[in-house]
């Protein structure tokens, strides 16, 4: 109950921020944070709860981005309709891929997930009539968003519309994580993570439930991917399907704490702040820090910041 009230207060606080902070740079950092958190939470559903460490989630990120962009650019479908079509398309492809690759375990699954993302990246690079190849897509200006006759958002050049949509998306991803963790599906997935064979012998159909996890995870990832693409305004295959995208998603969850709801939130904050702070200080060096951070977290606190802190608190409670 206390956490719920605290979360609602925090969410309202975030919603009020643009009223007294108008600096585009500050808003940009918040939007990057929302995207990072949404992606980390999306990955967490499959990677955290089900223990299926995909290093190929860039596939769903990129399919969401490409789907919505192509619909807008060549068919003139407005993003707020196109995004859902793109999400649906990504999920269908994800389920086909999932029913094949979920037979694999451990390192083999990781390798297969990377290979799938690479196959889709190479397909996007070579299918030039659909994707415009390596030159990428930069769609025309977005049409105004209307409900009935009333224009809701006419100007898409400011950061505020993206701020509120990003916030809503990140909150949605957190709520979904919370709901999944408490649901029957969540318990099934966590049982699969702890011991696949035991879960199987208890009557949990492995591939089916992993696919349910992937369905949610891929849908959220595709949503966040298409949002990020519209925010940036340009996509090309390496940028959306590259392994960096997948690694970043894992990193957000890893830093915060894999398999916890608050982990990706904490991880997103740490990663985005570090990224921005170090970009100002070292220019190119901030990319190096991602790798160093990854190594340090694995060696020093494999349970992430959340796991580390809660362990410390428990220890303190035990000694006092």
């Amino acid at each position, binding site marked *: 109950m206390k956490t719920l009230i605290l979360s609602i207060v925090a969410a309202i606080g975030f919603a009020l921020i643009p009223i007294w902070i108008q600096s585009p740079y500050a808003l940009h950092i918040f939007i990057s944070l929302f995207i990072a958190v949404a992606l980390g939470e999306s990955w967490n559903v499959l990677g955290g709860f089900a*223990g299926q*460490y995909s*290093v190929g989630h860039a596939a769903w990120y990129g399919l969401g981005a490409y789907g919505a962009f192509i619909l807008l650019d060549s068919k003139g479908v407005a993003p707020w309709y196109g995004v859902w079509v793109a999400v649906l398309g990504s999920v269908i492809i994800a389920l086909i891929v999932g029913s*094949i*690759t979920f*037979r*694999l375990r*451990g*390192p*083999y699954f*990781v*390798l*297969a997930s*990377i*290979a*799938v993302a*690479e*196959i889709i990246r*190479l*397909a996007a*690079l*070579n299918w030039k009539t659909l994707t415009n190849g390596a030159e990428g897509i930069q769609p025309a200006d977005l049409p105004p968003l209307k409900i009935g006759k009333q224009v809701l958002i006419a100007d898409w050049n400011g950061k505020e519309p993206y701020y509120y949509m990003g916030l809503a998306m990140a909150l949605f991803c957190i709520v979904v994580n919370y709901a999944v963790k408490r649901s029957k599906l969540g318990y099934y997935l966590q049982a699969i993570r702890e011991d696949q064979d035991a879960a199987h012998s208890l009557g949990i159909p492995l591939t089916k439930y992993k696919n349910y996890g992937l369905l949610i995870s891929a849908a959220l990832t595709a949503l966040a991917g298409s949002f990020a693409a519209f925010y940036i305004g340009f996509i090309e295959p390496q940028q959306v399907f590259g*392994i960096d995208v997948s*690694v970043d998603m*894992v990193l957000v969850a*890893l830093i915060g704490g894999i398999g916890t709801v608050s982990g990706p939130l904490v991880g997103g904050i740490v990663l985005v702040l570090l990224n921005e702070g170090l970009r100002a200080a070292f220019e*190119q*060096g901030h*990319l*190096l820090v*991602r*790798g*160093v*951070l*990854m*190594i340090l977290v*694995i*060696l020093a606190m*494999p349970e992430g910041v959340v796991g580390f802190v809660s362990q410390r608190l428990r220890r303190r409670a035990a000694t006092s």
Partner: protein
Amino acid sequence: MALLMQAILSGVLIGGVYALVGVGLTIIFGVMRVINFAQGELVMAGMYVTFWLFTLWGIDPFLSVLLTMPALFLIGVVLQWSLINRVLNALPQNQILLTIGIGLVLSNLAMLAFTSDYRILSTSYSSSSVGLAGIRLSTPLIYCFLITVAITAALYWFLARTDMGHAIRATAQDREAAQLMGVSVRTISIFAFALGSALAGAAGALVAPTYYIYPQVGGAFTLKAFVVVVLGGMGSIIGAMLGGVLIGIGESVSAVYLGSGIKDLCVYVIFLLVLLLKPSGLLGKSRA
């Protein structure tokens, strides 16, 4: 027909290098059950060492294998001793993430030190080729292949005939039993990772005259090395050699008949098919 022969022969030549990277990966996996996602970045490090040896002191890239291998061996010792040893009993996922982190650090260090410019190492014989019965093969690739064969033969002798080689194979077969027989598994692990790095370094030196050299070049080698190793069977050294040559041929034949944009796509599709249909690989026995 000549075209097909040409494609197959070039494929065999470049496949030798893939085999070298793959053998390094498979030795590390065999001894420690760790999949090294930084293998390609070690190839990249070998390429840069070779590039600078050539640019600063004019050392021929194929001669510099003698220096690149020890240099990468040392890097391997440091990486294993300081980082990988600490996660040997951790979850496989964490091991994978650790080596991905090491790869990120290596490629970004290279970018900070040498910028992300594409560099070319051009020797006097870089663009020359040898003709044989209507088939032309590039001279640097032929040298590259001959040295690959020599290194592979030396490695085979080392693993089959020396005490250290026996200890490595014993540890790969059964870590605990090897330990009970008095093998220092810790030392063997350090040696195996360093050996794998040295092989990656050798591959880097050998392809330096024919590839663009840039900080992100490693990723492609890492993925290809996985394909090679999975195709041959995880942990099988002969399998990795066979896998390397097969992937080299597959790549070069599909580049000729389907276009070079499609060739990598073919490699990954083959990879997925092998993972699904015969996950133990062509010569492998066990699934880890």
